[in-house]
């Protein structure tokens, strides 16, 4: 079947007393996707690619587009965020399923896989945060302007624009708050100043098969970090470096990234 034929379903899960949107498309074995620094403001071509053969379930983390717009300010530390992420994924029916997580949410997904054995079946991390080595620094993403941040996400400006485009009829100011101010605050709340919450001490506890995908031209966090993840994770781990891609490979190269991910999830 093709994704074009499948329809987009929208539901929600309560996290900390507020709803978090859950989008889903396709049929088959479910796979969860947690978006990167901007969350998932609009449905992505990458997700359509996955939905050709899988049921893709996309829950919004608190504070990200579609997710608990004020309750995220009750989450103070890594443990609070991990608890909320567990609530969210469980509520979305993703306990025990394959999970794809991008950028800052990769940090949360890696911690989940480390701390809750059995909760994640196969893990895909796309340019995950969570480790930081000052001798191999990333950029100060939070001190960037809105335009600079957008330019850091992917190499292809047209694809970035499409991924961040306001839906028809959406108030411009609401959209700017949802995709820039609030999203940045939520990402900063869990990862200030550069997303090192001690994951290196727990990475060895990840025993599930893991795929690390990194854009070769990533200027947020260099692709060299892929090796650190691969070396730290105990489960069978492989790395794919994507030429021509920046921080979010799923935006820059939806087909190729989906292809790598689907083959990995199929156990191939």
């Amino acid at each position, binding site marked *: 079947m093709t994704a074009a034929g499948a329809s987009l379903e929208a539901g929600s899960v309560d996290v900390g007393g507020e709803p978090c949107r859950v989008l889903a498309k396709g049929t088959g074995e479910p796979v969860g996707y947690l978006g990167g620094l901007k969350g998932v403001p609009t449905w992505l071509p990458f997700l359509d690619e996955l939905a050709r053969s899988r049921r893709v379930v996309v829950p919004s983390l608190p504070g990200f587009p579609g997710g608990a717009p004020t309750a995220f*300010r009750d989450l*103070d530390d890594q443990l609070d965020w991990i608890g909320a992420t567990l609530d969210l994924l469980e509520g979305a029916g993703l306990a025990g399923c394959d999970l794809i997580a991008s950028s800052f949410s990769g940090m949360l997904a890696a911690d989940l896989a480390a701390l809750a054995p059995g909760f994640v079946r196969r893990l895909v991390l796309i340019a995950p945060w969570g480790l930081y080595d000052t001798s191999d620094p990333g950029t100060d993403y*939070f*001190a*960037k*302007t809105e335009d600079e941040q957008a330019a850091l996400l992917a190499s292809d400006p047209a694809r970035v624009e499409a991924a961040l485009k306001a839906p028809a009829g959406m108030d411009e*100011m609401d959209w*700017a*708050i949802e995709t820039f*101010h*609030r999203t*940045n*605050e*939520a*990402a*900063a*709340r869990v990862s*200030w*100043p550069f997303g090192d919450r001690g994951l290196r001490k727990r990475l060895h506890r990840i025993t599930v098969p893991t795929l690390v995908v990194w854009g070769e031209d990533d200027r947020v966090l260099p692709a060299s970090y892929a090796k650190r993840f691969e070396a730290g994770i105990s489960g069978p781990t492989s790395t794919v470096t994507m030429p021509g891609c920046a921080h979010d490979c799923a935006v820059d190269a939806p087909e190729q990234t989906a292809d790598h991910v689907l083959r990995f999830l199929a156990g191939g």
Partner: protein
Amino acid sequence: MRSIFFSLMAYPDLPEPDERHSTWVDPSPSWWNSEVANRAYNSYLNELEYADAMGYAGIGINEHHNCAYVMSPSPNIWASSLARRTQNAAICVLGNTLVNYPSPIRVAEEFAQLDTISGGRLIAGMVPGTTMDTAYSYSVNPSTLRQRYLEAVELIKKAWTADKPFEFNGRFSQYRYVNPWPKPLQDPHPPIWMPAGGSKETWELAARLEHVYAHLTFGSLQSIEKINAGYWDMMREMGREPNPFSCASVRFVFVADDMRMAEELYAAPVDYFIKRVLKWNPRFTYAPGYLSEATVRMGMQSAMAESAKKAAGEKKDDAAKGVAHAELGSGKEGFHSLLEQGVIVAGSPEECTERLTEFCTRFNVGNLVLCNTIGNMSEEVARYNTRMFAEKVMPNLKGLFENAWEHRWWPTPQTDPVPLQNLETAGTEPAAKLNPVGVR
């Protein structure tokens, strides 16, 4: 009207700026010269002591970090020295950046200690803090700043007033025993001022907690008007009386015999301050979550209104952007441009009196925080300006608001300051005359 001599303590020997010149968060460490800093620090302390001797009601310092524009990461160190070296002025610490201290208890202790040493002359400033100072220099999570600040204020006030040790189970800190020694000398505690910028939440907070709202950013009269109106609107909305003593505002004031002499003496240090000191990277100004969504919306709306005006061909409101980004000429031209915008007040004692009376009356400000020293001004010129202000301007402002309103946020010191020991005669009394014990 209370006049406070306020020292910013800028680094006085910054290089000619290039494109990357930044004095906050990331100023170049190579600019620091310890001999220059040693002289500057001592000279700034001299000026504060001199202001006390000249009769200013208060002397003030503040706290910034990674900052060549205010080299004062620890204002309590200055306050400690001033508590011993001055006798009369209120010591205005404007303020301590509460969230930067590993424990709010530390602030409760240090302020109580200062209040006790100074005989109850402390104004305890509690500042929420800029993102440059907190998020970028001290790595405090910007999304939690306001909540941390509120919790710290609550804990400090309780620590100062509780009559027995207590437990505290806060969101950001937990204690089995809160019981700081010493307790403040002022009863129930030193007046609390809240130095802050102009956001809705700040006005609401200052009004609700009944702290003095100390607006200490530099800007044109136009920008100050907006901020002051916001504060007084909020006070009215919350049913608080418009007591001018609940508001403090900063002014650069340069007094001379006449305008020509003011220009001769002050244009160069003002130019240095604007061109070399007041320059930092705006990307550090708003870390994520620092501004509430309501304030972000307010900003977006006024930006939209601004671009609509621009589209309609109206003149752009440059002055409202504040001095840091205003386009100014250099030297005397810049000096006059700042005068016109009301960023600085300068001229003869009569001119300064008139401008300041108008300012305080128009904006209902009962506490003037005066920058009489600025940039790389020499100590002798700073002293001249201080004397001119104290002798020829301050007396004209003194009576303002005093009969109409009660100042409920000013220290109530002991009547007699503790005299400093006479080092010539100390230790010379014969042993037979000495009491073995005493309560000092």
